[in-house]
């Protein structure tokens, strides 16, 4: 039973693996490059740009028509020898910063970039303040108890 289970898993993973390899081959055929360097750049760019239609996936992970068109456009730009920042400019001039998975640091994104650190700071501050106020409370009661003890002992004498 166990071995049957494993062989099924193995078969499925083999199918997935071969489909993945095929996809890579298709991609190579669709977007042929002269140099490996260009190809690496192209694939990196597709990973860094967001698909405007599906929004939660990048261009390389999307098969929507607009993602395909943008891939073709980026392929053309890479083949023309455009630099990465020029391609980014081309896309943001049309689709806005939305197309970038890593948004630029500017007034509209301050909250996004600084927010997590600000929250962390607030959290540390809260922990610090709460701890201090508790410590004070303890020492206050300790002091009172001590005084009481001292008083009663002196009364005894």
């Amino acid at each position: 039973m166990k071995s049957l289970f494993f062989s099924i898993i193995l078969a499925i993973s083999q199918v997935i693996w071969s489909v993945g390899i095929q996809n890579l081959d298709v991609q190579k055929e669709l977007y042929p490059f002269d140099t490996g360097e260009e190809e690496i750049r192209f694939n990196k760019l597709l990973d860094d740009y967001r698909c405007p239609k599906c929004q939660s996936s990048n261009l390389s992970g999307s098969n929507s028509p607009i993602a395909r068109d943008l891939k073709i456009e980026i392929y053309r730009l890479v083949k023309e020898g455009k630099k990465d920042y020029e391609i980014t400019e081309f896309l943001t001039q049309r689709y806005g910063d939305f197309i970038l998975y890593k948004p630029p640091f500017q007034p509209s994104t301050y909250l996004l970039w600084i927010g997590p650190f600000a929250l962390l700071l607030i959290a540390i501050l809260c922990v610090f303040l709460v701890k201090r106020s508790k410590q004070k409370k303890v020492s206050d009661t300790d002091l009172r108890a001590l005084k009481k003890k001292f008083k009663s002992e002196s009364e005894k004498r």
Partner: protein
Amino acid sequence: MKKIIDIAPLVVFVLLVLALFSFLQRDNNQLNSVLIDKNFPEFTLTKLEDEDIILSKSDISHFPAIVNVWATWCITCRVEHPFLLNLKKESKIKIYGLNYKDDRQKALSLLERDGNPFEFSIYDKEGSLAIDLGVYGAPETFLINSDGIIKTRHVGALTPEIWNKKFVIHLK
């Protein structure tokens, strides 16, 4: 003072949850176009109705105008079609079509069958002008004012409500 410090984390947490929740409510399908307040992009494409006629930006000559991105494969465009026909009838605004990644024959026969609200349609087989416009899904509608500047963009079918809310304010 001590009380305030004790409830501060709770208050911050509640505010954060409220803020994040309000972001969730936003309609993410309406991306703001970067072309707003910019010139309509230049293009050189053929006319849908006659493949021998080359169109350029100067052919969109009557303002205010809307440019509507449509295709026969786009179901929502058909939903929108009666609105455009009605707009042509009742408003002075000129409607130009941008036929997006379509088949010329299919597009022409659809216009013949359902009516043609457009002055003409630009035939953008490869979607090149669409990319320059930042189009990511048909239908999309751009409003161009009398200076040839894009004033608003809507993604999805136009309805009288959306028309009044997003377009009419720019027409006064």
